[in-house]
């Protein structure tokens, strides 16, 4: 107990009425939330960079080049889609990076905000609304997503798996898939009461199969027809297929191009409207 009488511990006091402009948070609340999230992420920027560059390098070396060489030995060079296995694999890995990067930043932080630290409730006690919190989390997640995809692209470029001209459009495709899927995950994370292994189950039964069976490692058509539906409903496949067409000119019907973009858009719309409802309801309950 320190009883310091000498120091002048006076407070200046203007009062909230003059100090706070309510219009500011009404207009920019989501950005404040995003800023907060990004500051949080920045604490781990070394991990983000290390994983952002490390993961793709490892996968490219082992699957792209290692398994690629097995495929080449078996079927001769450029057997799939008339390109090297690495080129074939690249757009799929980008889609994974986009989806994973965005998802990581919406699932755990949302659970943390609602359950563990309850930071969303204290944000909501200021002038910031639930809708703005949802948007803010999403903005931050997309920053991470774009960054992660971009780092992946740099690795792919170094391995000669994509051309530099395709970087912007592939970035857009992978990030759109990330946005679509993670906006649904945002709403889902906000609606669960506590972890209790729910994320483990989602990872095991949704994320992993989506990664494995969406034409990631081999064309979806070489899977039995009764498994191909997994690809049709998965954003991973839509992003992979679109990415392949844009990366190395895999032939594609124009209606399918429209469908791919439409899937991302629809998922985003559904995800956001669901998330806004859940966030508002949970914060006001």
């Amino acid at each position, binding site marked *: *107990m*320190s*009883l*310091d*009488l000498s120091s002048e511990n006076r407070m200046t006091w203007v009062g909230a009425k003059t100090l706070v402009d309510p219009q500011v948070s009404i207009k920019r609340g989501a950005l404040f939330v995003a800023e907060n999230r990004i500051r949080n992420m920045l604490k781990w920027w070394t991990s983000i960079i290390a994983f952002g560059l490390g993961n793709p390098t490892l996968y490219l070396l082992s699957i792209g080049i290692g398994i690629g060489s097995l495929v080449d030995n078996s079927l001769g060079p450029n057997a799939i889609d008339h390109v090297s296995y690495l080129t074939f694999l690249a757009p799929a890995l980008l889609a994974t990076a986009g989806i994973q990067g965005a998802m990581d930043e919406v699932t755990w932080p949302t659970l943390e905000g609602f359950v563990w630290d309850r930071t969303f409730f204290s944000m909501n006690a200021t002038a910031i609304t639930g809708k703005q919190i949802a948007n803010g989390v999403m903005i931050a997640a997309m920053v991470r997503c774009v960054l992660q995809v971009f780092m992946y692209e740099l690795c792919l470029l170094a391995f000669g798996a994509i051309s530099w001209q395709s970087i912007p459009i592939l970035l857009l495709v992978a990030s759109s898939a990330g946005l679509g899927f993670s906006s649904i995950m945002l709403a889902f994370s906000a609606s669960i009461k506590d972890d209790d292994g729910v994320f483990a189950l989602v990872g095991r039964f949704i994320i992993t199969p989506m990664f494995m069976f969406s034409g990631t490692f081999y064309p979806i058509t070489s899977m039995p027809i009764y498994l191909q539906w997994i690809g049709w409903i998965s954003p991973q496949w839509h992003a992979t297929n679109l990415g392949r067409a844009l990366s190395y000119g895999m032939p594609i019907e124009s209606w399918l191009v429209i469908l791919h973009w439409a899937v991302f858009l629809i998922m985003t719309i559904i995800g956001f409207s669901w998330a806004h409802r859940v966030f508002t309801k949970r914060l006001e309950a």
Partner: protein
Amino acid sequence: MAKKTDAEAMIVATNLTKTYGEFKAVDGINFTVRKGESFGLLGPNGAGKSTTMKMIAATSQRTGGELLILGKDPNTSGPEIRAHLGVVPQQDNLDRELKVWENLMIYGRYFGLSRKFLKGKIEELLEFAQLVDKRNNKTEELSGGMKRRLTIARGLVNEPEILMLDEPTTGLDPQARHILWDRLFRLKELGVTLVITTHYMDEAEQLCDRLMVMDKGKIMAEGSPSELIKKYSSKEVLEVRFGSDNNASVAEQIAGIGERLEILPDRILVYAENGEKALEAIVKKGLHPVTSLVRRSSLEDVFLRLTGRTLVD
């Protein structure tokens, strides 16, 4: 049982020291706790109470001096000593993956007690902790007071000879505290030796037969609550407030009234045999406090006298 030759003294510390690098957390203290006693460790945060407790609990090795618990050296006989102890840590570390009764069962099993014995014991303990109808709840569903009672019940599962409580009622509401004090009092009546740390003075007065006031790793004073009050404080205390800016200047004017003054940022404490008379004297000087209060002297005052940095006399 412990060696009969030393049955009376449960804990004997001689020049007990614990250093972390350069920092002396406990600096050569001496004390003895006897069987059936309720012994309190009092002091501000960082005084060395918790470190002392951990050494007694045989979960922290001393770096100097001697420590005997039930005649044994905790540095070498950790598990044996811990078999005699019940430990209630400052923060409840209940197993939140387990239900209420499972917490008691598993904790008893850690001591190697049989399931058969524990089945009966759990019933007793649930009753003691007033948690009979919560037995199948997860610990997260309990209130703060219930968790605390469960942690205490858990510490009793091996019928310990010494029960150690580190700030048992911190963070509880007044009603929950009184329930807890009642439970602890019953243990005392059963002859269990209690070692308690607290920074609540009322708690120390309620529960402890003997107190040790610690600051900066050293013992400042030792004795029963009433002895300490008698020795370090006056019979009554007058608390007066003159507004945060005026206390210091007013204090100069009223110096000499009462035995001693203590100037705090928000109020002045006047130590006197008769508080009302002291107040009259102040008013006579033409001073009018914003508020005034006369109360009996408490351990709070002893504590302030012993550890406060603004001691006036």
